[in-house]
């Protein structure tokens, strides 16, 4: 295949602007699947991805398109994860491409993620083809959006196809423009072999499947590959191209091509996204630039609701890790919750996804503790500790000072909500950096906000204070000295370690009070009175009481009542299942996450 007829591209968009739907249409239009075979959003094939409408794992698909010039083109679509947590994965997917299709919603225009993605694409020297989607909406204002793209992003947008992916309007034009406006890969076939891994997954039969773009040289079926950053060597078993839901084996992959490699690899950790594949036969001297180790930003404890299921949980996490090198976990124990795992995630969404997959795919009931970030604790003896669990904080007397991670946040919001959002950022200890009007209706706000404020429900608060219009993108910028304290929660006079959290001094009193109130609503009445206390360093700052109940009895139970009362008891039992026994107190599992909801 001639290189000038290959197009390696990705689709970038803000969430819900129609990225996956457009991908479906391109696949459908190039005849890879008939529409009857097509099920919605072919590329997002995890349940959770479909439900949440986001792409978690990137994948790729190869399409053959016969253009109006009567020539056949190979279009390799590399799907990118659609969330801020996965920005490193996105950057590697983009690095594997030569061009990008930028989908912008004709009604909503440019959003925070649109910008973040475009900047990343430009950093990777990608040619960008804008596409205006949802033009059949009542509120569509394509002319305005084209102007916005030209003014805000600064790229030519006059030629942007006006489409509706959902209703199959103008899809052909997108394919045609991809061949016309996006460049073919440069041919470096004569150089030593280098392929960029943009994804990998574990398959029970094939072992790890590496998804990669060959940048330089040729990788042949009987080569031995060498992974340059993890320094592992494997004999290739199979090599080839990708089609939706399957593989097309081939004899080689050459510079400019996208495909897969299997080599009986047992562990996805050895095939990190961003790593470079070379061959022993034609070994490169330098890996491709841009490789980074995955860094966990957010941590929480995950415990089996039923203590005896510890091993099932361990097994579940290990299986998930097979396909998710960014998931970190190590055993920990809590006085309140018993044995479980401290888990590290790329961000909040990543955390939620893992929690949900554990519950769903492994049918496990789990308890998760409130998320935490990594704090740097500088002790009086100059020792520096990284603390991701409030329980591990040394005694106050040993702490000289603490530092917390600060994120750089970009928020795009309609001008009428700027006041609301600034107030929210202020309230979350944000540091205002810059504001810019994108047009007469919308503004872009730059803030520096402590990460521990962002993980506490910031995104929901942002949405609710802007009627859902504000969009957010953030990345961790630096560590900064900060006055932080550990809040302990006591139930029935006992400290419950799993409920402790670290909070800025200025917000400690409010959060402590709200936490006690929240728990009062969540903890059911017992046969005895339960004091709920919030304390900082032994000093009680808030107290609530759950009154005791004295009566819980169905007084009348005759012929007609038996079925009805049984249902009542079954409901009670369901509630009880979601309870965790902490000493003498039964606490619902949700309570461990309640610190998250203190501001809503």
């Amino acid at each position, binding site marked *: 295949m001639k290189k000038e007829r290959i197009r390696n591209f990705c689709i970038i968009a803000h969430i819900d602007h129609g990225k996956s739907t457009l991908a479906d249409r391109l696949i459908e239009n190039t005849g890879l699947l008939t529409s009857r075979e097509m099920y919605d959003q072919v590329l997002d094939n995890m349940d959770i991805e479909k439900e949440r409408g986001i792409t978690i794992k990137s994948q790729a698909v190869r399409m053959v398109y016969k253009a109006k010039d009567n020539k056949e083109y190979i279009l390799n679509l590399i799907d990118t994860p659609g969330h801020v947590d996965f920005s490193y994965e996105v950057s590697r997917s983009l690095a594997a491409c030569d061009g990008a299709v930028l989908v912008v919603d004709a009604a909503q225009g440019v959003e925070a993620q649109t910008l973040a993605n475009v900047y990343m694409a430009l950093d990777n020297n990608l040619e960008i083809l804008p596409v205006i989607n949802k033009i059949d909406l009542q509120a569509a204002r394509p002319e305005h959006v084209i102007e916005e793209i030209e003014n805000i992003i600064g790229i030519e947008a006059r030629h942007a196809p006006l489409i509706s992916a959902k209703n199959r309007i103008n899809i052909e034009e997108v394919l045609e423009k991809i061949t016309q406006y996006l460049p073919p890969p440069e041919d470096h076939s004569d150089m030593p072999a280098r392929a960029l891994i943009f994804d990998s997954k574990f398959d029970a039969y094939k072992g790890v499947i590496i998804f990669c773009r060959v940048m330089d040289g040729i990788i042949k079926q009987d080569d031995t590959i060498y992974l340059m950053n993890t320094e592992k060597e494997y004999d290739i078993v199979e090599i080839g191209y990708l089609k939706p839901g399957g593989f097309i084996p081939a004899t080689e992959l050459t510079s400019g091509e996208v495909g897969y490699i299997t080599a009986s690899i047992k562990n996805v950790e050895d095939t990190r996204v961003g790593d470079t594949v070379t061959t022993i036969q034609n070994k490169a001297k330098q890996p491709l630039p841009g490789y980074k180790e995955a860094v966990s930003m957010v941590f929480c404890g995950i415990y089996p609701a039923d203590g005896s299921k510890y091993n099932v949980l361990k097994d579940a996490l290990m299986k998930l890790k097979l396909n998710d090198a960014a998931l970190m976990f190590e055993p920990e124990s809590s006085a309140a919750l018993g044995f479980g795992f401290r888990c590290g995630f790329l961000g909040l969404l990543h955390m939620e996804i893992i929690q949900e997959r554990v519950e769903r795919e492994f049918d496990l009931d789990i308890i998760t503790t409130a998320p935490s970030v990594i704090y740097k604790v500088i002790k009086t003896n100059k020792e520096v500790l990284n603390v991701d669990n409030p329980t591990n904080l040394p005694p106050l007397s040993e702490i000289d000072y603490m530092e917390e991670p600060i994120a750089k946040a970009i928020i795009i919001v309609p001008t009428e909500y700027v006041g609301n959002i600034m107030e929210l950022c202020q309230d979350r200890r944000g540091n205002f950096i810059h504001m810019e009007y994108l047009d007469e209706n919308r503004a872009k706000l730059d803030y520096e906000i402590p990460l521990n404020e962002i993980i506490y429900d910031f995104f929901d608060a942002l949405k609710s204070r802007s009627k859902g219009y504000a969009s957010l993108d953030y990345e961790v910028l630096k560590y900064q000295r900060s006055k932080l304290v550990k809040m302990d929660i006591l139930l029935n006079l006992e400290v419950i370690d799993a409920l402790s959290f670290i909070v800025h001094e200025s917000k400690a009193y409010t959060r402590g009070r709200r936490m006690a109130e929240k728990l009062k609503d969540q903890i059911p009445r017992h046969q005895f009175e339960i004091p709920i206390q919030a304390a900082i360093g032994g000093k009680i700052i808030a107290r609530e009481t759950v009154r005791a109940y*004295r*009566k819980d009895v169905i007084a009348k*139970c*005759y*012929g*007609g009542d038996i079925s009805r009362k*049984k249902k009542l*008891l079954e409901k*009670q039992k369901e509630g*009880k299942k979601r309870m965790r026994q902490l000493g003498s107190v039964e606490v619902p599992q949700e309570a461990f996450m309640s610190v998250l909801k203190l501001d809503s």
Partner: protein
Amino acid sequence: MEKKLRIYIHIPFCKSKCNYCDFNSFAGMDHMFKPYFKSLISEIALYANELRGRKIDSIFIGGGTPSHVNYEYIGSILDCFKFEKDCEVTIEVNPGAIAFHNFMQYKKLGINRISFGIQSFSDRVLMYMGRIHNRASAINNIHECKAAGFDNINVDLIFGYPKQTYEHYDESLNIIKSLEIPHVSCYSLSIEENTLLYNMLKKGIMPYPDEKLDRDMYHLSIKSLQKAGIYQYEISNFAKPGFECRHNIGYWHRDEYLGFGLSAHSLYNEYRYCNTSDMHEYITLLDKYEKPVKEIEKLSKEEIVSEYIILRLRINEGIHVNTFNNLFNDDFESRYFEKIDILMKKGLIDKSDDSYFLTMLGMDVANKVFVEFI
């Protein structure tokens, strides 16, 4: 030996609706008596097979207010069954809607047990409840009932009602003792949605009842009645020895029963059935000679065991370990070892003479015990 069968008849009519009532009962629907009883008789006829060859050990005519309808309607229903003199036949009556001659008529129909829905002997509390009778008419009705020759009499009381005081309730218990009533049901008020009381509480017109007072009243019932030789035999039921209600004990023993009428329930051959609660549908179906059953539930072995335990724990005789083991070919104590251990430690259940039963504390929070066996 013939297997015992129990019959329940539901009469969904009342003179007026009480504030706390969420039962399927109607006031001001007297024009429906005739079509309803016609349907009732049709329904009973549809169960000829189930009734054939079975000894009817008890019949319970409940409501609603059965005494609100003419005794001839009651008679037409009892005529549908063959029952012996030793069959316990109960009818629920409300004071203020009944007189001496009615008791005489019931006697003639073969009814031998009268259950009074009195609820309280305090006029003030009766007013809060929205009852139409008063203390004087209630006491008068009980005397008339006795004069007509009934000695098997029950009185229903409610405690824990908003604004009802300990003294109000103590007085009611004392009146029962002085009238030498052999059977009392004392019900802790349960507040149901869709009742007038519920709305009054929500709106703050009435204060929420105090749980501690409710329990004090409950414990008073047990102690006070015991002094008069009226012993507790179920969470809410008290009787002089020999006057326990056979029909209701049947429910807790899981005896088979057939219920006829609107929203009546049945337990037959380990199926639970429930009739429609829609009057129009009930009559229409029976016009076409179709059973008015709305729900059928086949009980699994597990459900049967769980029902057995929960219902047995309601009664003071409790669960006899050997009987349980023989019945289910199982070992109660090893199967529920952990649960029994926890419940004993919490003081909610106790054991004596090879039987497990609820303690006094266990009766206050019986649901917490039951839920362990669901």
